[in-house]
């Protein structure tokens, strides 16, 4: 079994147009949450989101190329380009054939679909734009990445709601570890700011009317986010041999399903995923020095997650910093686990643990060290990134400092 290195990172999000800006925002505890711009929020119960403000497909894509891509697919390619450039990948015909792409997305190009359905249902037009299907499909991100770099190896997309990118990165990690691929581009992308999608989230009554306050007693729900984060994975030995910079290692993936309820989280299911990742990585609970939480700031998630962490880590949970960076980049659904994995990688690499922003009041039901509001300097050897999706499908990644 091979060790797996992250040699390239890329991101676009509400708190930065690239990975360096993203890291700087986390360090400063700067939130990207603000009034929603890219959809009409006047008929919504909530007003705020974590958008990539002022985004335009230029200078990233010329008009004709952009015609073929929903915003979520554009984000996927933008982040992948940065990750590939960062890794300094030297493409050969052999590498293109043995490289894999595994992306995560929850809603895919539903924003494009929403516009098309508005045309037929509301405006009474008799036809929908012919690119609606190829723009909407959730695998469009992976497909456009494959065309961008001429990658002809195994490529696919995983859709497990808010854990999509966690499962995707985990599968890419396992493919590298077992020798099923020699390089992988993996992560997640999402762009859910479309009126129909926002109305659906409103109906669930889980979106906060103001901001996202994970683990805080006065939390009132999640804030939707968008963006992408992508990683280049390589076998550690090969990365070292070519003198590549290693941001961090991926050392474990733990998965579980709650088999319980379609939306309510189960502490048992989360705990099983946490135990599974420790087993996969061969780690003891005491070796973990930081957890990037799922931390949605809904009334239900945060106490369930805290209970799961308490259950698995026992006394060590009292000394284990846990933060939710959703307080800054929002809940980017199928991209969430990718942005949060990048936050954990950044924490290990730079020795700075990102805070839980917007935290105002301790909640005894979330009795954890949540790094309130101020980033913290700490050299940590191992970190976890939690993702516990609607539908009860859970994925936790384990990372090691390079």
């Amino acid at each position: 079994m091979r060790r797996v290195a992250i040699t390239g990172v890329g991101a676009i999000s509400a708190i930065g147009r690239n990975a360096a800006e993203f890291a700087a925002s986390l360090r400063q505890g700067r939130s990207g949450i603000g009034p929603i711009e890219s959809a009409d929020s006047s008929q919504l119960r909530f007003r705020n989101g974590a958008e990539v403000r002022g985004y335009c497909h230029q200078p990233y894509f010329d008009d004709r190329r952009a015609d073929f891509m929903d915003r979520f697919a554009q984000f996927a390619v933008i982040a992948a380009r940065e990750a590939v450039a960062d890794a300094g990948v030297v493409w050969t015909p052999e590498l293109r054939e043995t490289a894999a792409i595994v992306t995560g997305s929850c809603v895919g190009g539903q924003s494009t679909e929403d516009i098309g359905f508005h045309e037929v249902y509301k405006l009474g037009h008799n036809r929908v734009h012919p690119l609606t299907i190829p723009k909407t499909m959730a695998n469009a991100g992976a497909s456009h990445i494959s065309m961008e770099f001429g990658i002809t190896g195994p490529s696919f997309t995983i859709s497990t709601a808010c854990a999509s990118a966690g499962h995707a990165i985990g599968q890419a990690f396992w493919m590298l570890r077992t020798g099923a691929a020699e390089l992988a581009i993996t992560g997640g992308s999402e762009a859910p700011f479309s009126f129909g999608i926002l109305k659906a989230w409103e109906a669930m009554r889980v979106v906060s009317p103001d901001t996202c306050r994970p683990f805080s007693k006065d939390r009132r729900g999640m804030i939707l986010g968008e963006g992408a984060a992508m990683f280049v994975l390589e076998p550690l030995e090969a990365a070292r041999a070519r003198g590549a910079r290693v941001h961090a290692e991926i050392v474990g993936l733990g998965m579980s399903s709650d088999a319980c309820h379609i939306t309510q989280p189960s502490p048992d299911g989360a705990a099983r995923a946490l135990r599974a990742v420790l087993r996969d990585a061969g780690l003891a609970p005491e070796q973990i020095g930081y957890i990037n939480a799922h931390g949605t700031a809904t009334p239900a998630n945060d106490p369930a997650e805290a209970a799961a962490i308490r259950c698995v880590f026992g006394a060590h949970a009292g000394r284990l910093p846990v933060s939710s960076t959703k307080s800054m980049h929002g809940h980017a659904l199928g991209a969430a686990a990718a942005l949060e994995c990048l936050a954990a990688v950044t924490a290990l690499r730079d020795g700075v643990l990102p805070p839980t922003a917007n935290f105002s009041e301790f909640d005894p039901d979330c009795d954890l060290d949540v790094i309130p509001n101020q980033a913290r300097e700490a050299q940590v050897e191992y970190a976890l990134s939690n993702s516990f999706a609607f539908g009860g499908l859970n994925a936790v990644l384990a990372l090691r400092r390079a």
Partner: protein
Amino acid sequence: MSDELIQRVLKVIATSKRIPLETVTIESDFQQLGIDSMDAVEILFALENEFDISIPDEEVRAVRNVRQMCEGVEKLIAAQAADAAANQ
């Protein structure tokens, strides 16, 4: 509270949750009826359609039983009627 309003609320709950109408009374609480958070969100949606009202999130946070739900609906209908009168 009018009997008519109560009966309409009980019917919405029974229909949404797909349980016999006679199992739902003004004295029932959600836990007794097996109504979890997602069921409750569906019932609110059905109530909004039934009474043509909009139920804000903050109105529902503390609602745990059928009586509170009926009182909340009554309040929102009254507020809506007052608004309509003021706008005439």
